[in-house]
């Protein structure tokens, strides 16, 4: 093998390596997005939107909840989660659902006539 060919091989190998690395990075970025389930929830008197949420077991979840009117609460007892939801402030709740099933969440800050109807369900599936 002469020097020119050797240089050409090295260039090809380096390019392939870079390409592979780029592909790997891209894939990792996609995995990163895939491994976090972000759910945006709007809270207002007297409902959560959406009120029915489905997530996958074992994949981290971030709930981003914001109130559209006044102080509400969010309680998901099955995963020991609760937060105060204030208007204009996005409350982020992170957890990993480690069991399947359908679980209730509710507003636990008394917010008005329809307070007791302000609830929803989280379904965790395989």
């Amino acid at each position: 093998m002469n020097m020119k060919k050797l240089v050409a091989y090295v260039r090809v190998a380096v390019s392939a390596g870079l390409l592979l690395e780029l592909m790997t990075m891209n894939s990792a970025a996609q995995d990163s997005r895939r491994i976090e389930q972000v759910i945006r929830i709007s809270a207002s008197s007297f409902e959560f939107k959406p009120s029915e949420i489905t997530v996958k077991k074992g994949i981290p979840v971030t709930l981003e909840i914001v109130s559209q009117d006044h102080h509400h609460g969010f309680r998901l007892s099955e995963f020991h989660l609760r937060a105060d939801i204030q208007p204009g402030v996005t409350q982020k709740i992170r957890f990993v659902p480690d069991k399947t099933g359908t679980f209730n969440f509710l507003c636990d800050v008394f917010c008005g006539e329809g307070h007791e109807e302000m609830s929803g369900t989280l379904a965790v599936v395989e």
Partner: protein
Amino acid sequence: MKDLLKHDLMKRRDLLKLAGVGVAVFVSGTPIRAAGSQQKKNDSFYFVQLSDTHWGFTGPNINPDSQGTLKKAVAAVNALDEQPDFVVFTGDLTQTTDDRKIRRDRMAEFRDIVTQLKVKTVRFMPGEHDASLDRGEAYQEFFGDLHYTFDHNGVHFIALDNVSDPTAAVGDKQLQWLQADLKQMKTDARVVVLTHRPLFDLAPDWDWATRDGDAVIDTLLKHPNVTVLYGHIHQEHHHMTGHIAHHAARSLMWALPEPGSVPKKAQIPWNVSEPYKGLGFRNVEAEVAEARYKIEEFSVAGRS
């Protein structure tokens, strides 16, 4: 009223005992004091607890006699052959409303109705329906302080507010007030705590808890003779935290299912074949020396 008595006298009578609690719970259909309680000890007295009257509620499928149930209960208390020393309402006197004027109208109507009680000493407490939307502003205009104490025949009563904060908390300030109050008492003082929500985590998913209830219970546990009477859950319920017994009272508007018995909490529909089922009030007889409380449950049945 005669029809009411006749109807109630036909109801069954059960006797339950809470082992180790020193409390006998009678389930009685008749608004006449039990024979045993007529042999009253010198140091004993009794009072009536009514709860969750939700005046202003309308819902024909839930309670078609929403305008009459409270009045029947008042009449039933007035018909007791021996009048109680006092009556206490443990919260949710009125159905919540976002309208400030309607809230006050309901409170005024409720007050007018219970003024018909023969008993002159009537104690009130707020529920979240009365006080959570305005931090107790309207309630205080009509019924006074949100938390307070009083003493009666050797028993120290503490009315604790876990509703005017909409997050269902007692709060640090009131907790300090409670601790200061109990500090003045002898350790073995007879203490009855009156509150609206359960102080323990009965069913947080159903909003049946007090956010800082653990701190309250820790404070109360330092005293050996404490009993808690509360409402909120619209059914009779008995629970122990350490040596403290917690007794929930029935509602006078609608019944609710047992905690966790159904996926979602919902009012139990009116049963035409058993009207007023699950609704009622109770007598509490305090035997002060023994720090023992006998609870008799009364139904509110009758024709609308």
